[in-house]
């Protein structure tokens, strides 16, 4: 990871925009319900969660109505999980580009990471509508929300670089990914609040950077307790993953065109 790599990335920022724009445009162009899918997916997951975990299992929700509690986490989670599966395949699915044109290869996972934000925004608008419905007023901590969004984007990009680069050489990634995402959902405080867990488990949970991001995002919007200890660990893990992802990507990107 050096200066040249970053400056070249910046030089090609316009292509990044076009690639992200293409991803978004193509995603909705043929779907009859179009952008509604950005809401349908988290909405129905929320309904299922509310029925099974909120009502039947009686999982606590930090005093927030359970539907709002889970939806507030599902919006960033949906972004994260669908971005990983898109970006993880981005180099392989764009093989014709990789083998025929030169551009910084990291643009491809980056474009998926950016393109996913459109869905995230649509989901957020729906989230605000739900907050109004449940009469939940956010406090000053709302101003911190963009920080958590940024952290989430950075984390998605870091892991995407790792997965996309590995996927070029080992197509196992494609098969492992849905499984990893499924497990990851349960070890992230989406269905349950962090306070639901015994203190011992909480330390392990902190190693999952999505835990801090989702808890933080929820605390910003719903004024629940902000667990700064958890957030700090998440920031540290995210930065570590970013450096690891960038190093691995850079070490392997020269071979992409030969083996993809």
């Amino acid at each position: 990871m050096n200066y040249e790599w970053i400056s070249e990335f910046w030089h090609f920022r316009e292509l990044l925009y076009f690639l992200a724009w293409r991803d978004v445009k193509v995603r909705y162009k043929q779907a009859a319900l179009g952008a509604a899918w950005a809401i349908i997916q988290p909405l129905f997951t929320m309904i299922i969660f509310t029925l099974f975990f909120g009502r039947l299992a009686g999982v606590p929700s930090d005093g927030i109505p359970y539907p709002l509690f889970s939806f507030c986490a599902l919006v960033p989670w949906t972004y994260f999980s669908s971005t990983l599966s898109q970006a993880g395949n981005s180099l392989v699915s764009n093989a014709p580009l990789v083998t025929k044109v030169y551009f910084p290869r990291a643009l491809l996972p980056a474009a998926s990471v950016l393109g996913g934000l459109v869905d995230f925004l649509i989901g957020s608008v729906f989230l605000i509508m739900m907050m109004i419905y449940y009469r939940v007023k956010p406090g000053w901590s709302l101003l911190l929300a963009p920080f958590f969004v940024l952290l989430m984007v950075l984390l998605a990009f870091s892991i995407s670089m790792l997965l996309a680069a590995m996927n070029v050489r080992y197509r196992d990634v494609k098969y492992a990914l849905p499984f990893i995402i499924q497990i990851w959902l349960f070890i992230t405080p989406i269905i349950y609040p962090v306070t639901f867990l015994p203190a011992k488990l909480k330390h392990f949970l902190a190693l999952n950077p999505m835990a801090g991001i989702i808890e933080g995002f929820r605390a910003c919007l719903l004024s629940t307790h902000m667990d700064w200890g958890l957030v700090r660990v998440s920031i540290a893990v995210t930065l570590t993953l970013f450096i690891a992802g960038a190093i691995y990507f850079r070490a392997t990107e020269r071979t992409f065109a030969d083996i993809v």
Partner: protein
Amino acid sequence: MESKTNHVMSEAIIVDKLSKKYVLGTLQRDTMLRERLISLLRAPFRKRSDAANTLWALRDVSFRVSKGEVVGIIGRNGAGKSTLLKILSKITYPSSGQVRVQGRVASLLEVGTGFHEELTGRENIYLNGSILGMKGWEVEAKLESIVKFAGVERFVDTPIKRYSSGMRLRLGFAVAAHLDPDLLIVDEVLAVGDAGFQRKCLDTMEGLRSGGRTVLFVSHNMAAVENLCSRCIWIEAGQLKMDGSPRDVIEAYMATFAAAQETMADLRSVQNRRGTGEIRYTGIEYLARSGELLTTVRSGDSFVMRFHYHAEKPVPFPSFGLRIYTELGTLVSDTSTWHHALDIPLVPAGDGYVDLDIDLLNLLPGRYYLSLWITGASSPVHDNIEHCAQLQVELANVYSSGRALDSRSGIVFFPQRWNLAGVGGELAPSEGQETRSDAQFPGKRA
């Protein structure tokens, strides 16, 4: 490596001892972690890249290209031409050696890279333009001109999945033609598209050349290379075989084809054949009418194909047949003794041959494949061998015009004449205002 300090660059490209190695194992498409683990368990200490699996796509290639030169790169398929272009375009990296390229590079290894079926023509122009390195404002400024160049004015807002393949090509090339680079790198773009499209491509490159740009292009179209290029490089088996004036290099290159031409094939050892085997082909020869073995077969030639056979026992009423296919597998012709109503009551046991005397081979230059068959009276197949011999047809001046036809002109030509009597006015070659093919069918009525 040589000194890197020489920064005096009237050179657009400097390639220095360039080599590119592929380890064949890693070329496999579906690389799985499992295989890697298994091989690691089996032989944990063996180095994975043994020499047997190594393929040198390029080896020790060095050359320089000055600014303003137009260089054609020729060579057989798999010789390493495309690998060279990919390295120059930074798509892939050399295993050793150095490459330096100066100026704004546009590299066109494929027409319409990154086109998306669902997007409209206009959207694809933006996308493709930015993929090829144009800035957004640049595309915007040139949009109208690109659309006009491609001739798709009426369909700009139609998804390109509704485009014909010709429209798609034109659109892709139109974007590339507006790149305005210092150095243009083009891979065999001329191999696709119709004559009009190819004309456009050539005109564009001609324009770049007269604009003083550096162009590097790979082509199998020798006429185009000779016309456009100031210099030609021939790459053979990963090495630079010859570098010089297009005429010299092309001549030397074409001569190797004549040498490799097989005008004789032994069919005795062919395993992949069907039939009873009572009578079988044993060989083919291409002979001049005077009887000696031909060295080359050219468009418009008269010659004899001799098919040798061996009969295990007497065979009643066999038919000898031949099918000619293009390199892409299109059947050009199926002919046989049966078609000519030649009944052979009995072929005695032993060796013999039948001749197919060709008055005029009206195939255009290219490689063709022959399949041979023999059937019996109640039509059991005695022998059938698919694609068992090659017929390499070389360039010839079939219209006596000095303008050679090549494989891009189609598959066949036919005796013909253009008559310009209806044009009127002054015509340049004033002899009779009529052209005719040199080729004469014997037995043609005067």
